[in-house]
């Protein structure tokens, strides 16, 4: 067993060597690990190696509210709550790590290429807002309205919707900052420690990892697609599947795009990220010219100047999708102290995970507002609490 980095005090804990083991060292796992560590909990993060699918390294980096939770207002409100926490969260991470996150929240846009598309989107956003008036407000823009915010918008754009709650960030720097901040706050980060088995043991949990046995009082499953395999070991259910998104980034360009769109944004460094394919192809994260060409063609309709930009990189990444696309939060009934966290919006939800969810887990509970996110909604079989 590898006991490097474990203090005498931690080793002597009755529940094991840590209060909480977080399985998964991506943005979701590290947000929770950071949140728990800053509350004084002793946390071990068990991460896989570089073979992991790593949605955290391939994502689109939006902190996004618009259009989320159209069929589940609780998700719209949860996303908005996190987005509202994001400014303070980013500032705290920057102060603790010296990392510059380039977080910006000037609002975000969705472009529509026809009146019908614009009508349909406006209808859906209005319905959500009527159902739950506390959800983010939005504004319908015609072509001229879009042009005022986005001078380079193309003539084939009919209009769009603007939501002031939306923003974006440099998500790779966020990932790095969360990693440093968690470690600075006392978390014990262990790479190459993929969890093979997990069971209840001595009032806590025991994990067999690639680097030996680990014990902890509580366990948080934040392993992305890996949760599907781990969850049943502690009486939980994680019906998640991979959904591929392909993304490309252009050469660094002079700033021209001052607001992020759902599928196009210009980063703080000047590159334009273009993406958002949705493909059901299993665990295949490769990228393909046919799909990328389609993405590029749509981007040029939105912003004709992009025809002159060169693409310098493209990649595929796997979203962690539940059957309805919303997060799953559960505490096990059969194994209290085992929590499940999974979502495909780990960037947007990072602030709520670090500040709200981590505080709940530290108290050994999930707030009533999160009950609606239990995996029980998918099958009626009672597995979670």
């Amino acid at each position: 067993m590898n006991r490097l980095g474990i203090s005498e005090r931690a080793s002597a804990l009755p529940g094991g060597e840590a209060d909480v083991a977080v399985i998964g060292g991506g943005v979701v796992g590290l947000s929770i690990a950071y949140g728990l560590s800053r509350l004084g909990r002793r946390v071990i993060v068990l991460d896989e190696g570089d073979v992991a699918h790593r949605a955290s390294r391939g994502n689109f980096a939006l902190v996004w509210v618009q259009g989320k939770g159209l069929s589940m207002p609780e998700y719209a409100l949860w996303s908005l709550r996190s987005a509202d926490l994001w400014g303070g969260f980013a500032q705290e991470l920057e102060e603790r790590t010296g990392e510059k996150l380039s977080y910006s929240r000037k609002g975000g846009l969705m472009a529509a290429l026809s009146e019908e598309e614009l009508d349909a989107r406006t209808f859906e956003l209005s319905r959500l807002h009527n159902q739950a008036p506390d959800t983010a407000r939005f504004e319908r823009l015609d072509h001229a309205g879009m042009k005022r915010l986005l001078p380079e918008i193309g003539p084939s754009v009919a209009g769009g919707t603007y939501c002031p709650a939306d923003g974006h960030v440099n998500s790779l720097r966020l990932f790095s900052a969360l990693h440093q901040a968690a470690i600075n706050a006392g978390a014990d980060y262990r790479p190459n420690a993929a969890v093979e088995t997990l069971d209840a043991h001595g009032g806590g949990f025991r994990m067999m990892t690639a680097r030996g046995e680990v014990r902890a009082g509580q366990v948080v499953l934040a392993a992305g697609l890996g949760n599907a395999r781990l969850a049943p070991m502690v009486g939980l259910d994680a019906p998640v599947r991979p959904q591929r998104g392909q993304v490309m980034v252009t050469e660094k360009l002079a700033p021209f795009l001052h607001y992020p769109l759902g599928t196009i944004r210009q980063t703080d460094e000047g590159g334009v990220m273009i993406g958002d394919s949705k493909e059901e192809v299993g665990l295949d994260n490769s990228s393909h010219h046919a799909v990328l060409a389609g993405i590029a063609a749509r981007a040029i309709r939105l912003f004709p100047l992009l025809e002159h930009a060169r693409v310098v990189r493209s990649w595929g990444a796997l979203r962690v999708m539940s059957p309805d696309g919303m997060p799953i939060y559960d505490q096990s009934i059969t194994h209290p102290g085992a929590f499940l966290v999974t979502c495909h919006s780990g960037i947007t939800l990072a602030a709520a995970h670090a500040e709200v969810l981590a505080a709940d887990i530290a108290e050994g509970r999930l707030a009533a507002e999160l009950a609606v996110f239990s995996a029980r909604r998918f099958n009626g079989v009672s597995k979670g609490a």
Partner: protein
Amino acid sequence: MFRRVHDHGPPVALSIDGRPVLARPGESVAAALLAAGVTTFRRSAKTGAERGLYCGMGVCFECLVTIDGVANRQSCLIPVAPGMRVETGGAAPDLAGKAAS
């Protein structure tokens, strides 16, 4: 600092930052830059640090220059041509106002 190992063939006239330079047929723009004593091809858009030829084989994208008005071209992969205008410095291209062709 750099000199040509094979220095023969008819000269190819091009300009580097407005300065007339003679290169050799078949050599890359990067080679012509080095032979002319230019080792800083551009500056990092992020940090302002100096950048120049690194891998020399089209992989690292460090040797980007502007050629005939088109920014961010890989100087190690592009052969010199008569009348070519090469500009170092490497500012991020400004596409604003450019319509589709």
